[in-house]
């Protein structure tokens, strides 16, 4: 009886595989994807087309009404919300290259094996990433306040007055927190990519007379281009989503308004301003903007890669 069953199943395996099998295997992914990605986006899109409407003084109840694209028109007319975009783009234009340069440099240094106690330093660079960004912002917030910051007091004692929360520099103080938090993870990704480059490449380069710097620039970096692209892209997306650091620092300075970044504006509109429908429209706009920027970066990357390939 049992052998017959086994034999039967074995035969079936050779014959017609159940047409449902692939779907079954994909199902968990699709389910999670729909539940946690598609559904929230769909809810946001639907929400953005409605508005809660009352009448008179409002005490006689309210109803949710379809308003078409009104919320989008309001979002685009909201100057403070729109001004957040160039602000984060400027921030990203400075912060992403700086972060990538620092992360890549550290990764390359670790890779040359010139660094002693490499494991310790890797850990030290990575550690800030393990600190939640809200905590990181709180921590730096202390260091930014003149009366409580040992760093600012030190500079004060040698005659240099720094005010990292002044309206002109506060954006870069935020960038500093993000940089401190995120260099570690980017460094680790780039370092792992470097580890997978075949060592013979370096040997060949050395025989051809390339020094460490030349090897780094012309062999190592091109070899880890995919990892560089990945980290750059995620940094750019992170830039557009900028929220935690300015939101926390907002509590200690008046130079960060509630709508400083698009994400903060969405939070302020939905939670403080109590208009979740308008906030949904803003969220859809931010999502689309992020998509466009990501596609642009990918396209630019493809063009340079193509050119490089043709050049070779």
């Amino acid at each position, binding site marked *: 009886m049992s052998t017959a069953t086994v034999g039967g199943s074995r035969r079936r395996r050779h014959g017609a595989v159940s047409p449902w099998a692939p779907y079954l295997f994909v199902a968990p992914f699709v389910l999670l994807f729909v539940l946690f990605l598609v559904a929230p986006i769909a809810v946001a899109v639907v929400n953005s087309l409605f*508005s*809660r*409407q*009352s*009448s*008179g*003084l*409002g*005490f006689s*109840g*309210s109803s949710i009404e379809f308003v078409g694209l009104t919320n989008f028109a*309001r979002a685009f007319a909201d100057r*403070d919300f729109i001004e957040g975009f160039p602000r984060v783009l400027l921030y990203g234009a400075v912060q992403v290259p700086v972060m990538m340069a620092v992360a890549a440099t550290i990764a390359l240094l670790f890779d040359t094996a010139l660094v002693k106690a490499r494991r310790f330093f890797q850990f030290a660079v990575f550690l800030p990433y393990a600190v939640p960004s809200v905590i990181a912002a709180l921590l730096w917030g*202390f260091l930014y*306040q*003149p*009366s*409580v910051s040992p760093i600012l007091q030190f500079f004060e004692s040698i005659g240099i007055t720094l005010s990292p929360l002044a*309206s002109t520099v506060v954006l870069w103080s935020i960038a500093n927190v993000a940089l401190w938090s995120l260099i570690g993870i980017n460094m680790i990704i780039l370092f792992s990519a470097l580890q997978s480059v075949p060592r013979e490449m370096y040997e060949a380069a050395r025989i051809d007379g390339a020094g460490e710097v030349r090897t780094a620039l012309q062999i190592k970096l091109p070899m880890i281009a995919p990892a560089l692209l990945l980290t750059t892209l995620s940094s750019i997306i992170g830039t557009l989503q900028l929220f935690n650091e300015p939101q926390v620092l907002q*509590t*200690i*300075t*008046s*130079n*960060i*308004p*509630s*709508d400083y970044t698009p994400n903060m504006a969405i939070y*302020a509109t939905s*939670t*403080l*301003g*109590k*208009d*979740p429908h*308008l906030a949904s429209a803003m969220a859809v706009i931010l999502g689309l903007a992020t998509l466009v920027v990501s596609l642009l970066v990918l396209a630019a990357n493809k063009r340079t890669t193509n050119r490089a390939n043709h050049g070779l």
Partner: protein
Amino acid sequence: MRTAATMLAGAVAVTGIAACSPEEGASTSGEPVEVEFWGWVPGLEELVAEWNGDNPDIQVTFHRMTGDDGQKVEAAVDAGAGPDLVQLSTHNLPDYVIAERVQDITDYVAEDESNYTPASWASVSFDGRVFGVPQGIGPAATMYRHDIFAEHGIEFPGTWEEYLDAARALREADDDLYLANLSPSEMGQWVQEIQQAESSWYGITDDAWTVGVDDEGSRLVAERWQTLIDEDLVTTEPMWTPEYWSLVNDGTIASITYAAWFPSILAENASGLAGQWSVAPMPTNTGSNNGGDSGGAAVVVLANAEAPEAAAEFASWLNGSDDTQEALITEGGLFPSTENGLSSPALLQENEFYDDQVINEVFIEAAENTPATWVEGPNFGFIQTTILDEFAEVVNGEQTFIEALEITQEAAVADLENRGLEVTSP
């Protein structure tokens, strides 16, 4: 003991959700009614435990609110969840009523009306219906460093005009000294002066709202602080930050004008300065005796509460009964909104931190002198966010207070209209 009770209550709550249908079967089946309560006043844990001990049929679980818990409540209620009872600033109550997040509890609490001050009862009543139980009010007075004033031979000012002179005199006497801090992030200090000037952000004319963010009284206050900022007579640090408390503790800030709940917080954060502070009435506008109030709180029954009557019963006991007044005043630092609270001997204790002064005498006087002109309205949160963003630009020197008020006024009217509400010009 208390922990055990809470755990037991929690377990009952879980089984309650699993077993009971929405209809009210709890009390008939012999199981106690469950009430989940969120609040922030110090010492509420003890009062809740006391209630649970005396009322086996209505068991309350308490959650201490911190950070942005208040904002979580709104999302939770809108999603059909959330606690049964929550402590709420009365400024936000109209918005809760309009968004249908609170229940009408007129039938359960109307008989207690006579025990509450008329102003506090008015702050929870709309359209003749009652939507909460008042929990404290916020009459304002000025906490000041009597040692600093004495050192420089300056009298604490009685009017805002004298206040300006005192600010100049202190600044002149000592370059590191400021009379006060203007926090661009703190709304209550603005609201109390608006009330003193008999203005209001909202009004009701027939069946429509009026918005008065930049009305006459507000402009008076705006011009006062503009002068203080323009002449560098005040610091402009956001309140509650380490930097702010550092300025208070090192004697840079000589006075703070705020509500009756502030003295205990000041004593906590500046414990090294005990005996050096006094409390005086908030300076007055010339020709007027008015005090101010930054706003009170209420305990409200949220929309999804299944046993509103039990929840309201607990809320009434917590805020109105004779048993709780002393604890709310001494532990909670509340300024009572009830008659039995106002006549409680606990209110008139000498305060060590304030050089053994009976500080509440000043706050009682302020409460009696606060004009009842303030009207709560539907988009307080929106106005607050907008105006504070604009104030930040004022302290940076990018615009004036008057401009900030005009921008906020316009935005507030637009926001109300977008909600479909009726708005008219006053």
